[in-house]
């Protein structure tokens, strides 16, 4: 069978024009599909960036919260109530809000501010410069060195700025797992300082971060938080809730889906038509092979191999092209929010398999129908 597959390979790749057209079709389709999906994956990942970066096992919030940026303050007594639930190892408040900072050159820049529990600093990011205990110093803030960092004028330790006419000083530079979605730099400070510096509504706790004593305590905690009129979600549930919001309650998911389907249709039509034309042009030769003594299953193997080889080569090229584009774009635009995930690759792979299957199905039908007798009549 190896010889027959090699024959199929040579028939395919030696027809350079057709092979190139097939590859371009599939590569382009894969490129578009991966590009769309990776952009969506990037958006979803960044939309949940604070959840990943803070790293708490459970988050308590108002039931109306849909995204991590969309906070609704909770009264202080809820913190005490959560701490008293059986199975809670500890619970700490988190402040999450936005502000405008005035930089030393007089310009203003929007920032996201996270206020960590003063006692434990739970959820603090790892520092790459400075010491975490300096966050207790007067006016102290830690800046995250992510793709938005340069928007604060590439601050160093000691750089000063103003927040609501309060002086702020950078005492540490941190790194995080993921940058935020909205293109604003992130500052960390203590919970108390966040309340002191930023204008606040009546209720000030954005989230309560909870660590259960064990996995088995999670359902009880969720149930008792619900009894308080609030909602407790595990980290993954919160990420899913945010993803669902962007997927189903904004136009982003629908538009990405439409673009992905369009890419698939373009790839399917270009590749299907080209492959079918390739087979049609070789139909007499397939008929000759049949007359000589090739069995139907051998011809099917040949066509499936040709379609599969083209599809997988195009898949690899499409991924490579997309990875190059994303890498290049991130070099120029650090905030470019695209990431290729295994899920993206799997979806594109399934679509490529469908393209190859449909293309080869049409071709196989045609080849099986040809009568070798027609070769004599030609």
């Amino acid at each position, binding site marked *: *069978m190896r010889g027959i597959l090699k*024959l199929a390979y040579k028939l395919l790749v030696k027809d350079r024009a057709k092979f190139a057209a097939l590859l371009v079709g599939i590569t382009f389709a894969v490129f578009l599909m991966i590009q769309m999906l990776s952009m969506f994956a990037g958006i979803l990942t960044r939309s949940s960036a604070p959840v990943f970066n803070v790293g708490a096992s459970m988050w308590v919030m108002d039931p109306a919260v849909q995204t991590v940026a969309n906070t609704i303050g909770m009264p202080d007594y809820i913190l005490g109530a959560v701490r008293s639930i059986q199975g809670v190892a500890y619970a700490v408040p988190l402040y999450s809000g936005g502000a405008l900072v005035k930089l030393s050159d007089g310009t203003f820049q929007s920032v996201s501010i996270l206020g960590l529990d003063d006692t434990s600093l739970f959820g603090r990011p790892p520092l790459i410069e400075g010491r975490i205990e300096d966050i207790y110093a007067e006016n102290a803030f830690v800046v995250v060195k992510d793709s938005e960092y340069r928007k604060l004028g590439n601050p160093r330790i000691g750089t000063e700025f103003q927040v609501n006419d309060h002086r702020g000083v950078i005492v540490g530079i941190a790194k995080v797992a993921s940058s935020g979605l909205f293109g604003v730099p992130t500052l960390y400070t203590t919970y108390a300082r966040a309340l002191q510096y930023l204008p606040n509504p009546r209720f000030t706790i954005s989230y309560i971060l909870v660590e259960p004593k064990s996995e088995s305590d999670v359902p009880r905690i969720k149930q008792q938080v619900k009894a308080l009129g609030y909602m407790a979600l595990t980290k993954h549930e919160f990420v899913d809730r945010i993803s669902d919001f962007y997927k189903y309650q904004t136009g982003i998911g629908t538009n990405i889906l439409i673009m992905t389907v369009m890419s698939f249709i373009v790839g399917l039509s270009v590749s299907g038509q080209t492959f079918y034309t390739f087979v049609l042009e070789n139909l007499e030769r397939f008929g000759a092979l049949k*007359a*000589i*003594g*090739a069995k139907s299953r051998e011809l099917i193997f040949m066509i499936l191999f040709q379609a599969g080889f083209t599809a997988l080569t195009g898949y690899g090229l499409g991924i490579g092209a997309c990875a190059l584009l994303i890498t290049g774009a991130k070099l120029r635009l650090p905030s470019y929010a695209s990431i290729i995930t295994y899920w993206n690759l799997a979806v594109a792979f399934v679509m490529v398999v469908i393209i190859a299957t449909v293309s080869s199905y049409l071709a196989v039908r045609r080849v099986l129908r040809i009568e*070798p*007798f027609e070769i*004599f009549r030609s």
Partner: protein
Amino acid sequence: MPQVAIQAKNVVKSFGVGDARTMALREVSLDAYFGEMLYIVGPSGSGKTTLLSVVSGILRPDAGTVAVEGTSIWTLGSDRLADFRLRKIGFVFQDFHLFPRLTTAENVAIPLILKRQQWHEAIEVAKGYLDVVGLKGKADLPPVKLSGGEQQRVAIARAIAGQPDILIMDEPTASLDGDTGHAIVEFVRTHIFNERRCIVIVTHDNRIYEFATRVLRMEDGHLIGAEKGGSP
């Protein structure tokens, strides 16, 4: 007494249905023997190619039987019939039907590859057959770089590469000029034909009759007699 290679009995074949039905073969019977170079001649539409297709196992007759080397081929399943053709019958098509993207050696190697021979081994054997048909040194060229006569020789090399007992040639001179066609058939008679092989040729070309051991004429779906040699 020569051994029978092909025996067709009362073969009937029609195309189309109803008023459009055409009888291509009307109870045709034929014996072809080893050591015979049998020509089937006749006007267009007389049923020559249909008869050739039926006796070589690529077109199922409506009625009648066909035995090749004693095997009733139309009782075989499609895979066994394909395998039978591969091992017993070589084909030379009118338009050669060579693969233009493959080299001549790769074209000749096709029956060997279908017989599951290793690729490199098949190519070496194919080169040997190219030597036999006088195309030494052209093994790595694509067929399009060859003349019509050379392409016909490649087709012949491909047909004999599987060492078939029976060689079927459909209008072997139709795509060639007179001299080249004559030379090709002379070559077949001299180098390919032997006492252990049966060659059946369908042709319009009476300039090559001299190489036949027997010439049978067809008209309107009947074998009407012999122009040379014995009866059908």
